[in-house]
């Protein structure tokens, strides 16, 4: 993957003094007494609106009940407020304060939905059922015969090219359709590490199968 476009502390070129609204958030949230308490409460209300809008936006595909989603949104907002208070010194005014703060609650929603995935009765981690590959790439049953050779070639490539960890991640994410954040929660890893593992697996498999797919179609 490519080299750094930004450091961990964001993009130094963009660092500047905050706009008046952001400065007010910073002043009150790092202040004391009642003013600080009120700012934290306002932040929580704002993040709760964002969290509720976000779970609604993700809506249909979630298979999570309404009350559970509302609970999840509430927890996401509360946890995001805690992280923001802890990390407020890292805000570099590269964006409005609110956009930076919303990012925390969006990530919390993603992480909590990832953990929630394992409550599904059909959630599988290690089952290696290659017959599911066609449907995972949107091919109906009428095309499954055409996939036989490709599946055999891909399985061979997986056997010969991937490390055990790459294979496990590939099987979970690709064959079993486990969402990345769900695998992160299950393996106690992080998104970046698992994406990199899958990235390396994809690169190896693509090299092995180069031309195979195009040649067949």
């Amino acid at each position, binding site marked *: 993957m490519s080299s750094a476009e930004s450091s961990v502390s964001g993009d130094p070129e963009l660092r500047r003094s905050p706009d008046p*609204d952001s400065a007010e958030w910073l002043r009150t949230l790092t202040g004391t007494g009642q003013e600080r308490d009120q700012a934290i409460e306002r932040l929580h209300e704002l993040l709760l609106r964002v969290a509720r809008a976000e779970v609604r936006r993700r809506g249909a595909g979630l298979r999570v009940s309404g009350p559970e989603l509302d609970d999840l949104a509430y927890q996401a907002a509360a946890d995001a407020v805690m992280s923001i208070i802890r990390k407020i010194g890292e805000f570099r005014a590269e964006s409005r304060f609110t956009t930076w703060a919303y990012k925390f609650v969006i990530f919390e929603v993603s992480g909590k939905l990832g953990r929630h995935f394992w409550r599904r009765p059909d959630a599988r981690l290690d089952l290696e059922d290659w017959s599911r590959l066609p449907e995972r790439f949107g091919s109906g049953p009428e095309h499954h015969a055409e996939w036989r050779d490709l599946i055999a070639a891909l399985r061979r490539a997986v056997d010969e090219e991937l490390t055990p960890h790459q294979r496990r991640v590939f099987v979970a994410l690709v064959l079993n359709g486990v969402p990345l954040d769900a695998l992160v929660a299950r393996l106690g890893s992080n998104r970046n590490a698992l994406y990199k593992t899958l990235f390396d697996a994809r690169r190896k498999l693509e090299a092995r199968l180069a031309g195979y797919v195009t040649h067949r179609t």
Partner: protein
Amino acid sequence: MNGFSRLERFLRTDPRDVGCGEAMEILHVYVELVAAGEDPEARYPGVAAHLRACGPCEEDFAGLLAAARLIGPE
């Protein structure tokens, strides 16, 4: 597009792809560029490449953009 070409597209990696860590780190800046109608890809080509390939980061991007647009600054 058929299933074969979807699989082929999935396996194809973009060397500019910066991965989740960097994309998540800069996402608030990236979102404001988009909201302002600017071209974020010109400034962060590796993040743009990542968002094309990574479903969860793309989802977070869409959610953050929606939040920045709907709820905006106070």
